[in-house]
């Protein structure tokens, strides 16, 4: 493994209005490993991924991919860097005006990596990987159940075999067995295809299955980082409270107000 991290964040800060969402995030993800990010609802996990993707511009800090600062790159290079990242959005974000198969093949066609026929074959292949029959390809996204939509979104994210993969809650809304299947698929992308992944999850079993390392974000800061196996016995009171789902502890849920 080389020394440069695949993804390297330093002091990434973002505020919306007077609300500080990211407060100086430092994070390194080594090549061909997966990082699991956990943290409470609204702690800024999705915003963090969107910052790395360039969809949200951070107020300060640096974001490097392969040692290159994406925030200060020329436009063309940034687009190229972005094309190497596949993203599974938290709510799926499937294009509802086109069919499932067209959704999955979208990136391949946009990057001109395949002809229409080839893209269709690849789409069916990836749909099969996420446990969906080829006939699903002809349906509209709105005709699918929530869990099926999530799997199609996953298929779309991995269809072009991107170098870097982001998963925003890949198994939320799936039944436990399908969740395990999807976890397996994500691990395979990292172990066999050599992708680098960041996955956000609230499911601790899934976090330990997919993650090499794990980080916890709280109030816009990384409060803990360590091996994913140690999530349940990290020795960090915040992580312990979170992973065991205890009501009492250092994290006070701001329910009132």
């Amino acid at each position, binding site marked *: 493994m080389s020394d440069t991290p695949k993804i390297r964040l330093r002091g990434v800060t973002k505020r919306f209005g007077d609300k500080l969402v990211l407060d100086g995030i430092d994070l390194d993800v080594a090549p061909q490993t997966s990082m699991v990010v956990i943290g409470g609802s609204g702690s800024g996990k999705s915003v963090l991924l969107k910052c790395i993707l360039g*969809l949200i511009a951070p107020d300060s800090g640096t974001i490097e991919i392969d040692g290159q600062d994406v925030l200060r790159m020329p436009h063309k290079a940034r687009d190229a860097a972005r094309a190497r990242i596949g993203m599974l*959005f938290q709510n799926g*974000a499937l*294009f509802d*005006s086109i069919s499932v198969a067209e959704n999955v093949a979208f990136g391949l066609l*946009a*990057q001109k990596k395949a002809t229409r026929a080839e893209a269709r074959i690849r789409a069916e292949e990836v749909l099969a990987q996420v446990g969906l029959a080829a006939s699903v390809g002809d349906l509209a996204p709105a005709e699918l159940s929530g869990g099926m939509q999530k799997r199609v979104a996953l298929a779309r994210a991995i269809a072009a075999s991107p170098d870097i993969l982001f998963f925003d809650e890949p198994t939320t809304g799936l039944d436990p067995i399908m969740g395990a299947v999807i976890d397996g698929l994500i691990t395979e992308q990292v172990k066999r295809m050599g992708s680098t992944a960041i996955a956000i999850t609230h499911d601790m079993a899934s976090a330990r299955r997919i993650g090499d390392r794990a980080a916890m974000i709280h109030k816009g800061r990384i409060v803990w980082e360590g091996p994913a196996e140690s999530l349940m016995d990290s020795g960090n009171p915040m992580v312990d409270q979170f992973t065991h789902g205890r009501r009492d502890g250092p994290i006070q849920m701001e329910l009132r107000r």
Partner: protein
Amino acid sequence: MNTLLNAVAALGRGALSACEATGRVTLFAVLGLSHILRPPFYGRAFGRAMLEIGYLSLPVVALTAVFTGMVLALQSSTGLSRFAVESAIPSLVVLSITRELGPVLGGLMVAGRVGAAMAAEIGTMRVTDQIDALTTLSTNPLKYLVAPRLLAGIIALPLLVVVADILGVMGGFIIGVAKLGFNPYIYLQNTFNALYAEDVISGLVKASVFGFVITLMGCYHGYHSRGGAQGVGAATTAAVVTSSVLILALDYVLTELFFTK
């Protein structure tokens, strides 16, 4: 004193934010237009927009035109009979329709139908992260979503207005012949004698500008909507209101340009 200062400050803030909004819309328009000219081109998206704006708006525009022509003939017969110049009815109808009412009423109907739908569709895509998803899939949303719609608006509206012109004149003709006792042949002859190419062309240019304004407002408000279903609803309203007002204002400006020398 303080209240006066406050009032001035509020006025200044209002003016500033109006300038800022105008700047943002202009930038959006320029970017959208520039993507019409640069590849890749999305033929399917353009076809879909043409269908939506042009073909599916035909019934409502056609009905509007027919009834407008009929009412014009009827109103002018009661008005003009006071001056005993009823023979001017055919030319009044055809000039009003081609120069003004075809493009303006057609534009307003399409603004309600298409501008609203467009803002709702793009707004929903925005709030469900679909626009972000496009970007991550190496597709420029301005090129994929906005440019085809702008182009379709610019092309489809004049085509609709040609239909509206013909049907509007037909509406006037029906009333003129069936109710006001015109000889059909004389009615048509009067119509064509009064009509010059520039009447029709100025109307079509107006239509093109209105088509651009409608799709621009639909795309702009949809693209910048935020905050779930409520935000999309607000974007839809804003798209219809701004495009309707702009159509009427630009109609005046274009009329000045075309007809006052």
